[in-house]
Structure formats: structure tokens, C-alpha cells
């Protein structure tokens, strides 16, 4: 018995030895191989990890969730959702397995993946944070309003174009919608086929939905550029403002072989700058441009943000462009056309909205921004955006004179922007109707209101309009701007004490 017991113990020792070998091997794996295994390209855990983390929510100024991470049943743990779909697609961007990130998802990736300590658990869900390093990421609140965004989409009614609304005092983007937009949800799908199909469809769309018209595409600004030309006059040749330009139907362009510029529909127009501006007289403003000079005009455009990338907090913002002064040497025709927003002047709708905001804000253009604040997972404020000026485009005096011009556009009986009138609210605006070289035209309206205490500046672009009288900036785009202003001021009036 004793001998057998001895052997039982020996067998036990042998079994212990087996366990020790296993234990040693496990340690060996952890110490010598774990690092290489973790970083092995065949290891899908790195990707899974990234997708296994929740991202913070993106929330609109009126409290609507624009993007959120919800638990998914598949191996990626969290599914990124975009409840508002295409309405905010070009703002939120996407968080895609295959195609990376875009929009706010890209710009504020670090915010949306960061957990601001300390987090004290307030409910059971958060207890796990104590036991793990599972992040409870911060949420970001944006300045854009769902209601305004919806209104913009409704007003565009499926037509290609863009609506940008900005708070002139802070630079806060209140709405920024373009058609065609896209729904980021399928791009964030965990099913690669769904992702790829969606991407292919977006790629094939001639309207290029991934290049938001509002901030990633350029258009001829047409007559809206006359605001800049007028500013150049006030800033560089104020005497021109009171000069009288005789009525005319055409302007022979200098440095060309007798090329003649005609007014829209062959009308005759003339008068002082205020009159020229009110009726949007092309021949008059072309002459003003020639008189103020290419150098002054190019300098003025630069001051208003043309040729500079707008520091909006989104990736891939396009630059508006105005040709350099040197191109106008011995090329008066180009200068004349540039002064009325044709030739090679190119505008991003966002820039025009900011320029209107600059006029409204006494010549100072505030840095446009979508970020309003960052809140921790428990609602505590982590940071709040502080408005900062971007450009001093002009003097308060010039801004006030420009305001008068723009008010005249809306208020004068012969103004092109009469459709933007709002009873009880003074609106300043400027229409634009631009030839594109093709059969269709682009219609614009930029505006701000109320004139005394501007609260909203808007730029509206409606593309691909037939070249007829009833399809002008004043008739197509102005009503949209009016609706935006009205709705916003009504909302603001309600919320104000």
C-alpha cells in the first residue's frame, strides 16, 4: 500500500509537471510572442478593436442625434448609425470600414473617440467603466439646426443646389445642405458588399454627392459678386460710388475685338452705384470694375476670403477663386466680366454666405464652425467653442454702405430681390444669375436679416435652371433664402425670453 501510495504521489507529481509545462508555455507565449502576434497583419483584432469602441454621438443644435454608435449583434460590436441620413450626410460624413472617415467623423475623430475623465458612474451601464478601459466617449454638439436643414432640403425640392446659413456674429453654421446629398448609413455598414455597392452608386452619380455643393464645389457667382465689386469701390475709389453711369444696353469691352457685353434680356440700365446694384446692372458694374481696376478688385476679393481655404471645421473645403490682378493687364474684357462674377471667378456657396455674414457683422467675417461644444458621456461640458474672427474684410463704414445697397435690392420697387421681403423684418440681399457656358443657368441669392441686428446670413444656390425670365436669382433662390430667414427668426423669437 505504502509503495502504491508513493507511486500515486509520483503520478501526481508527473501530472503537476505537465501543468507546469503548459503554464510555462503560456508565459513564453505572452512574454516572447504576444507583441508580434498583436501586430501581425493577419490578426483581425486590431480592426475589430477600432470598431469595437463606441464613438461619441453627434447632436444637432436642436437636440437631434445625427450620428451614434449602437451595439450591434455582429463581431464589430458597435454599429455607427446616422438617423437623419442624407439630411446631414455631407456634414457628419461617414465612418466606414472600407472607405475610412469623412466629414465631422473625420475632423473630430479624436473628440468622438476620447473619454474625458473623470467619469463617475451614474447608472448601471457605466459601472463597467470601472472594471475595464472601455471608453465612454465624448459627444459633440453642432451648431446646425435640424429644422433649418430640413427646411433647406424641402425648399430645394430635389433641385441641385446648396443652402448655407450662418450666424454672422459667431460664424456658427446654422444650416448647410446641398443637393444631391447622400445617406452615410450604407457606407458604415458592416457588410462589405453593402458598403461597396453604396460607394459605387455615389461614385456614378453625376451630381457628385460626396463633393458637397455647399462647401466642396465651385460655381460662377454671377451678380452676387457685385457685393465685392461695390466693396472695392467704397474701399479704394469711393468717388465712383456717386458717379452717374448713363443708361445703356451694352458695353464695348476694352482689349477685345469689339466684343459687347449686354444686360440680361437686353435691358437698358444706368444710374449711380446704388441704382446699378438694385437692378443688378451688368454693364454698369462692368464699367465700375474697369474703373476701380484689377489690382483693387483682386485685393478686395482676397480680403473677403477668395483664394483662401475657408477654415470651416470640415475636411476638403474648396477655395473660392478670383483671378490674380496680373491677368487683367491689357485684358479689360476679363476684368469687366470678373467684376460681375463671370469669366473665371469661382465661388463656393459657403464663401458667399460668409461674405454676406461679413457685411452683416460690420465687415468682420467670423470663422465658420460646426462645433458648438463637447460634452462628456454624462452630459458635463468638456469644452465650448469660442467664436473668433477669421477676416476683417472691410471697414464698418463700408459694411454699412454695402448693407444699404443690399437693402435696396430687397426694398426698392425695382429691386431684383423683392421676393425676399418679409413683413416686419428688414432683409438685405443680392441676387445672382450666372451663365455657366452650358444651356442652363445658376441662380443665387445671398442675404442677411434683420438688418439692425443681423442674426442670420444665407447663401442659396439653385443649379441647372432654364435661361428664362422666371428663373432668376430673384425668383428661384430668393424665396428659399426668405423661408430660411423667416423660419430662423421665428424660432429665435420663440426661444428668446
Amino acid at each position, binding site marked *: *500500500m505504502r*509503495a*502504491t*501510495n508513493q*507511486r*500515486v*504521489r509520483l*503520478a*501526481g507529481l508527473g*501530472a*503537476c509537471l*505537465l*501543468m507546469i*509545462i*503548459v*503554464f510555462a*508555455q*503560456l*508565459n513564453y*507565449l*505572452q512574454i516572447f*510572442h*504576444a*507583441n508580434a*502576434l*498583436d501586430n*501581425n497583419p*493577419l*490578426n*483581425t*483584432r486590431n480592426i*475589430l*478593436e477600432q470598431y*469595437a469602441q463606441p464613438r461619441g454621438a453627434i447632436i444637432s443644435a436642436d437636440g437631434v442625434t445625427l450620428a451614434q454608435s449602437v*451595439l450591434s449583434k455582429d*463581431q464589430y460590436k458597435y454599429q455607427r448609425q446616422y438617423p437623419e441620413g442624407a439630411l446631414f450626410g455631407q456634414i457628419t460624413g461617414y465612418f466606414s470600414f472600407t472607405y475610412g472617415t469623412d466629414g465631422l467623423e473625420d475632423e473630430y475623430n479624436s473628440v468622438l473617440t476620447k473619454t474625458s475623465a473623470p467619469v463617475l458612474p451614474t447608472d*448601471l*451601464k457605466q*459601472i*463597467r467603466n470601472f*472594471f*475595464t*478601459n*472601455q471608453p465612454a466617449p465624448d459627444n459633440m454638439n453642432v451648431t446646425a439646426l435640424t429644422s433649418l436643414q430640413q427646411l433647406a432640403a424641402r425648399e430645394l425640392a430635389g433641385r441641385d443646389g446648396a443652402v448655407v446659413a450662418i450666424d454672422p456674429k459667431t460664424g456658427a453654421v446654422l444650416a448647410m445642405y446641398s443637393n444631391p446629398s447622400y445617406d452615410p448609413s450604407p457606407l458604415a455598414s458592416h457588410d462589405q458588399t453593402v458598403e461597396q455597392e453604396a460607394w459605387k452608386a455615389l461614385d456614378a452619380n453625376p451630381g457628385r454627392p460626396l463633393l458637397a455643393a455647399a462647401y466642396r464645389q465651385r460655381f460662377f457667382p454671377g451678380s452676387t459678386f457685385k457685393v465685392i465689386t461695390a466693396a472695392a469701390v467704397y474701399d479704394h475709389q469711393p468717388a465712383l460710388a456717386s458717379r452717374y453711369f448713363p443708361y445703356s444696353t451694352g458695353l464695348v469691352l476694352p482689349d477685345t475685338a469689339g466684343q459687347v457685353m449686354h444686360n440680361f434680356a437686353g435691358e437698358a440700365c444706368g444710374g449711380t452705384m446704388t441704382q446699378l446694384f438694385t437692378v443688378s446692372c451688368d454693364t454698369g458694374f462692368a464699367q465700375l470694375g474697369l474703373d476701380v481696376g484689377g489690382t483693387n478688385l483682386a485685393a478686395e476679393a482676397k480680403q473677403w476670403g477668395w483664394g483662401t481655404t475657408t477654415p470651416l471645421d470640415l475636411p476638403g473645403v474648396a477655395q473660392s477663386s478670383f483671378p490674380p490682378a496680373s491677368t487683367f493687364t491689357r485684358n479689360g474684357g476679363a476684368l469687366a466680366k470678373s467684376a460681375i462674377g463671370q469669366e473665371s471667378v469661382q465661388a463656393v456657396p459657403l464663401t458667399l454666405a460668409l461674405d454676406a455674414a461679413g457685411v452683416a457683422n460690420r465687415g468682420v467675417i467670423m470663422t465658420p464652425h460646426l462645433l458648438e461644444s463637447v460634452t462628456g458621456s454624462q452630459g458635463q461640458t468638456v469644452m465650448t467653442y469660442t467664436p473668433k474672427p477669421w477676416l476683417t474684410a472691410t471697414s464698418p463704414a463700408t459694411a454699412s454702405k454695402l448693407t444699404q445697397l443690399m437693402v435696396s435690392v430687397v426694398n426698392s420697387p425695382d429691386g431684383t430681390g423683392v421676393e425676399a421681403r418679409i413683413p416686419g423684418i428688414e432683409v438685405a440681399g443680392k441676387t445672382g444669375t450666372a451663365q455657366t457656358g452650358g444651356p442652363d443657368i445658376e441662380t443665387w441669392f445671398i442675404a442677411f436679416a434683420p438688418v439692425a441686428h443681423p442674426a442670420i446670413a444665407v447663401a442659396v444656390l439653385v443649379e441647372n435652371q432654364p435661361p428664362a425670365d422666371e428663373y432668376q436669382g430673384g425668383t428661384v433662390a430668393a424665396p428659399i433664402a426668405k423661408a430660411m430667414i423667416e423660419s430662423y427668426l421665428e424660432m429665435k423669437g420663440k426661444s428668446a425670453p
Partner: protein
Amino acid sequence: MNTQRWQRPARRRAEFGMTLMVLLLTGCLYVLSNLGRAGALPADIVPFLVLVFALMLVAHLSLRHLAPQADPVLLPLAALLNGTGYVFIARLDNTEASAQATWTAIGVVAFVTTLALFPRAANLERYRYSIALAGIILLLLPLAPHIGEDINGARLWVHLGPLNFQPEEFAKIALAVFFSSVLAERADLLATGTRRIGRWLVLEPRYLAPLIAAWALSLLVLLAENDLGSSFLFFTLFVGLLWVATGRWAYLVLGTGLFTVGAVFALDVIHHAQTRVQAWLDPWAHFATSGYQIIEGWFALAAGGLWGVGPGQGNPQVIPESSTDFIFASIGEEIGLVGVTALLIAYLLMMGSGLRVAVRSQRSFSKLLATGLSLLLVVQVFVVVGGITRLIPITGITLPFVSYGGSSLVSNYMLLAILLRISDDNANEQALAGSRPAGLTAAAGEADRFAATAVIEVVGQ
């Protein structure tokens, strides 16, 4: 007798206390796992705790009545392993979790039934040929047409109506019983040669015949079923018991030699075995095929590191067979090296308790059986974890009490019942042998040499 009366409730009280601790541990792990995975308390936490507690209570109460003096450590350890396994199965697959819960209940029923059917371990010995026959039939079942099925290249499964099971899990217990009884009876005959061949004294073949027959048959069947892991397990059991019974090192040497020959032969014949060995030698070269599982297992263990990524927060679902053959890697990912080491220690403690039962036993049969069953547990763990950590080729057997799988769970509960039955016998026999407190103390002192006994005794008091 005074000692006995005092000892009787104490052992069960200790068991009950440890059972409560296991309940607490398992409950916490379950909650954490759900918090980690879903960020919410498990909806079924109350039914879960009630069920776990009820099952443990049934097992515990049945011990109070059927084997009051049995070892107090084994049942809580089994419950801990079973509970931990369940938490990870539930985290991986809901359907499997409910099946596993049902199997646990059936396992506890089998546990109680085994204790009730065999009031003494000697009863097992009496039916050894019936048990051996049952074991052989069980082993042969998967080969029978219509009811057997190949899964992953091995023919292990049997379908009988609604029941699917792996008979070899039960066969291993039957064979352990048979080996032990034959060896207990003939240990002396097997230890010394009686027939002279030239200069050598050789064993009388007829004494060995039934053993060789059972062993050869089991090996043949296992090779026919391509189940290398179980084959290794049976072989170790056979050779180990032979050595413990006779003390002849020659058996160990001979056994190892035989197994090597068998393994080399198997490699030549069985394609299934070849791919596994290839994957073992160079898994990276076979990443897309046979090496995938082992590499995913490593990725999981590496991701887990020392402390794990946290229950419910890893990605063990990407490992093939993450809830069965590779549940060890799944656990390693989420509770880390520390967690899996705790599991290994739990197995060692089980083995220690089992061997203590063996050492205390006064009867050869019980001693050998307890040794065999205890070794089975640990060797099985070695085969599984050794396969995952690439010490040996992967063989695809289950981690006792932890892996998803009804046959494994039920058979292991039966194994546990037999160990506890022997343990209870020991105490009764010592009591019958006369009131010799000195002897008892000596026996206890001897047992203390095995791991962690002291700690557990303290808990008991």
C-alpha cells in the same frame, strides 16, 4: 464515533460555504461579462443565480445524504469550472448556453444517480465486466451505420433519436473502472514475471490478456474513429494505471514505445492526423487552412495578455470552435494569463483532492480508480491546452467541465460522483477500522502534502 459525528457536518458545511463563494464568483463573472458585452445587467441574472444555486444545492444535499463524509473540495471546484465555462459559452452563443444549462442539470442528475446507484465503490468492481462491455459498446457506437457521424474528420458522434452524444466520453470512465479492477486483482501477478524465456522472466500472458484486449480494442476503435486525443488519453490512463499498480518502470517505457509506434503508424495512414501535425509544425504556412484555428487561438491569448481584455469585451468569436475545443483561448483573451492560470490551478486542486482520496483509500481498486480518474482530468487539460499552445498537435477534445458539450459535462459529473463515492468509502472504512484518532490524524497529515489542502481545511472549520 465522536470524531465522525463532528466531522460529518463540518465537511459538508465547508462544501456549502465554498459553494456559496463559487455562486458569488460565477454570478459576478456573469454580470461583468454582460456589462462588458452589452453594457447592461443580464436580463436573466435572477433566474441564472437561482438555477446555479439550485443545481449546486441539489448536488450538495444529495452528498449530505448519499456520501456525507466525502471530500468537500471537489464539488465546489467542479461548480466553479462549470460556471466559468457557462459564462463564456453564454457570451459566445445564446443557443449553446441554454443547451449547456440543460446539460448541467442532466449532469447533476447523473451525479446524484451515480451516487445513489453505487452506495459503495466496491459495487462498481462487482460489475466490471458489464461495465467493460458497456464501455466497448459505447466506443463502437459511432462506427455503426446510420447513427454515427463524422464531424471535423473524426467519427465521434452518435445520433439516437433526439440525442446526439460522444460515447467515448463515457467509455473512458467505463474503461478506467475496468482497468482498475483488473489491475487491483492482478497487480502482484503483473509485477513479477513467472514464465522463463531464456534468461528473462516474462509475464504470464493470460494475466494480461483481458487488459491487452481492452486496450487494443479501444485503440483500434479510436484510430478507426480518428480521435487521436482520446486515443492518447486512454493510452496514458492504461499505462499510468499499470505502472501505479505494479511499480514496473518497464511498463512506462514499453507503453511510450508502443504509443510512439502507434502514432507514427497513424500518421502514415490517417490524413486527418497528417494535416494536424503539419499545422502543429508550422501553423503559419497553413494559415488559411489547418493552421487557422491555432493562430486565431494565439491571437486571442496574445490579445488577453496578463489580465485579459475584460469579460465580454474581447473578440473570441473569431476563433473556430471558440466555445468547445478552443474555449481555453476564449477565456485567455478575456481574463488573461491570470485567469487561465486560475483555471489550471482549479484542475490541479481537483487532481490533488482526487489523489488524496486515492492515497487514503485502503482498497486497491478504489485507489487505482481514484488515481486514474484524477489523472484523466489533468491529462485531458494537458492535451487541450497543450494543443492550443502548440506543445502537442491539436486533437480536439474538450476541457473538462468548461467546454460546451453535453457528453463531456455529464460524464465528468459521473466521474466526480465516483471520486466522491470513494472518498466517502474511505472515511467509513477508517471509522469501521476502529476509533483510531491517531491513524486519522496521520492520514490527514499525509494528505496535507498535496496542494492547498491546508487552506481548504481552514475554510472547513
